[in-house]
C-alpha cells in the first residue's frame, strides 16, 4: 500500500529557498526558506490569509513561485510531481457529484491507469485497501455526498494514500472532523512517517500541531519561526504570527509540553 521510502537524514525531501509568491501585485509569501526531511511531520500554522495554503500549493506544483525556488529531492518543482500528493480542503469538492466512495478513491490512480481500459480488479483492490486504512471500506458503494464531514476527509486521505507519494501535503485535514477521525489521522501519520513519508499539513489548532508534529512552522506571509513545537510555541513567536495579545497557558505538570491558548485582543 504505502511506498517504501528510505529516509536519508542528509538530503531534505523538500527545500524552499527565498520563496516568494505574488497574486497579482499582492504578496502571499515572501522569503520563505525551509527544509523538510523524509519521515518528518510538519505542522504549518498561521492566521487566515497567512499563506499556508499557498505554500502547500507551491510545493504541490499548482502555484508558481514568483521569486526563489522550491525543490523536491534536489529537483526544482515546476509543476505537479508524481511523488508529491496533495489533499485539498474539503470545502472545494462538489459533494453532490454522482460518484461512489470507491470511484472517488480510484481518482487517485486516474493519471497512472491507461485510458483505453477501465480500472482493473487489482486497482480496485488497492482502492479498497486504502479505504480499509481509513476504516471506510464498508462505505465503498455509498454516494460520496451521503458521508459526514469526517468521513469525507477520510475518503480524501484514502485517495491520497492510493496516489502514494513520498511527500503528503494536507490542507487543514483536522478542520471540522470528529475526534475519532483526528485520532485515526494521527496514527496514520505515524505509519507513514515510519515508512519515510514527509507530511506537511496546515492547521489552526496549536494543540493538535504540538501533539502531532515533529516540527512546526509559524508563518504570516513570512516565516516567523520553525522548529520543534516546544521551542516555537512561546508567546512572543505566537504573537508575531497571529498579532494581538496572546495568553499562553501551560497545562502540563512537567512544563515541557504546553497547551496554548491564543486569543486576539479586542482592538
Amino acid at each position, binding site marked *: 500500500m504505502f511506498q517504501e521510502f528510505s529516509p536519508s537524514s542528509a538530503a531534505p525531501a523538500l527545500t524552499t529557498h527565498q520563496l516568494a509568491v505574488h497574486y497579482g501585485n499582492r504578496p502571499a509569501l515572501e522569503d520563505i526558506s525551509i527544509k523538510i526531511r523524509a519521515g518528518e511531520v510538519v505542522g504549518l500554522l498561521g492566521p487566515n490569509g497567512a499563506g499556508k495554503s499557498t505554500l502547500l500549493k507551491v510545493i504541490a506544483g499548482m502555484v508558481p513561485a514568483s521569486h526563489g525556488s522550491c525543490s523536491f529531492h534536489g529537483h526544482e518543482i515546476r509543476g505537479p510531481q508524481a511523488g508529491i500528493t*496533495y489533499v485539498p480542503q474539503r470545502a472545494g469538492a462538489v459533494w453532490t457529484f*454522482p*460518484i*461512489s466512495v470507491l470511484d472517488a478513491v480510484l481518482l487517485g490512480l486516474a*493519471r497512472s491507469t491507461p485510458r483505453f481500459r477501465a480500472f482493473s480488479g487489482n486497482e480496485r483492490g488497492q482502492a479498497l485497501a486504502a479505504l480499509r486504512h481509513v476504516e471506510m471500506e464498508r462505505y465503498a458503494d455509498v*454516494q460520496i455526498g*451521503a458521508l459526514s464531514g469526517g468521513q469525507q476527509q477520510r475518503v480524501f486521505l484514502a485517495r491520497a494514500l492510493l496516489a502514494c507519494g513520498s511527500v503528503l501535503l494536507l490542507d487543514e485535514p483536522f478542520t471540522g472532523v470528529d475526534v475519532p477521525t483526528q485520532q485515526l489521522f494521527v496514527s496514520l501519520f505515524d505509519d507513514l512517517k515510519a515508512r519515510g513519508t514527509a507530511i506537511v499539513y496546515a492547521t489552526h489548532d496549536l494543540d493538535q500541531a504540538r501533539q502531532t508534529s515533529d516540527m512546526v512552522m509559524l508563518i504570516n506571509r513570512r516565516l516567523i519561526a520553525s522548529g520543534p513545537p516546544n521551542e516555537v510555541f512561546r508567546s512572543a513567536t505566537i504573537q508575531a504570527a497571529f498579532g494581538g495579545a496572546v495568553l499562553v497557558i501551560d497545562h502540563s505538570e512537567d512544563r515541557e509540553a504546553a497547551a496554548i491558548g491564543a486569543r486576539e485582543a479586542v482592538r
Partner: protein
Amino acid sequence: MSWLTEPWSHAFMQHAFLAIMLVGLICGVIGVFVILRGLAFLGDALAHAIFPGVVVAFILGGNFLIGAVIAAVIVSFGIGAISQGSRLTNDTAIGVIFAGGFALGVALLSTQQSYARDLNSFLFGSILSVRREDLLLTGAVGGIVLLVVFWFRREFTSLSFDRSFAQSSGVNLWVFDQLFLVALAMAIVISLQTVGNVLVLAMLVTPAATARMLTDRLRTMVALSATIGMASGVAGLYVSYYQGAPSGAAVVLVATAVFVVVFLLAPESGVITSRVRRRLHHGHPERDQFEDDALPV
C-alpha cells in the same frame, strides 16, 4: 401500428430521426458534465455567442462548424480574460459576451437578403431540411465529441468533482477547460440545424438533469441521459409529425415532460415518492432501520 412506421416512409423524416437521435446522444453525454459543473448558463451563452461565427461562415460560404469553433474559442478566451482581469464574476462576463455576440450575429445576418428565413432557421432549427451530407457531418463531429469525452473521462470527472486535487495530480485545468468548451461548442453547432439556437440548451440540460435524479452513478447517468435525449427526440418528432407542432419545440416539450414525471415520481428523490415513503415510514419506522444504520455517523 402503421402510425409508428408511417413517418419513416419519407426520406426527410428518416434523416430527421437520425439527426435528432445523434443530437440526443451527443448532447445527452456532454450535458452530464455541463450540469455537474454548473455550466448551464455557459452552455446557453455559448449557443448564442457562437452565432456570429456561424453567420460569418454562412455569408462567406465556408463551413459553419469551423466558424462556430473559432467563435467558441474567442468567446471562451474572452470570458476568461474579463473575469480574471477585472472585478467582474464569471457569470457577468458570460452575460456580457453572450448578448454582445448574439447581437453581432443578428446584425451580420441582417445584411443578407434572406434574413428573416435564415434567422428563423438558425433560431429554431430546420430539422426537415437535414440532408445526407448534414447527417454525415453531424455523425463525424459528434463522434469526435464522444471520443474526446471518453478519452479524457477521468480528467473531466476528476476536475468536475474536485478541481484542486485534479490540478495537483497533473490535470492542466486551463487546457481541459478549453477542451471542454470546444467540445461543447461542437455539440451545440451540430444541434443548431435540428433544434436551433434557442432550444439547444434543453437538449444539453434537461435529459442530464432527469438522469441525475434517477442515479448516483456517473456511468449510469451518462447512459440514461443519452437514452432520454434520444427517446425524447424521436417521440418529439412523432408529435411534430402528427400534430404539426414545430419539431424543436415538440422535442423539448417531450424532454421537459419526462423531466417533470421523474421529478415527481423518481424512486429515490421524487417529490411524491419521497412523501409517500415518509408517510409509510411514519407508521413503520423499523423499516428504515437498516438505512439509518448504514449511513454515516
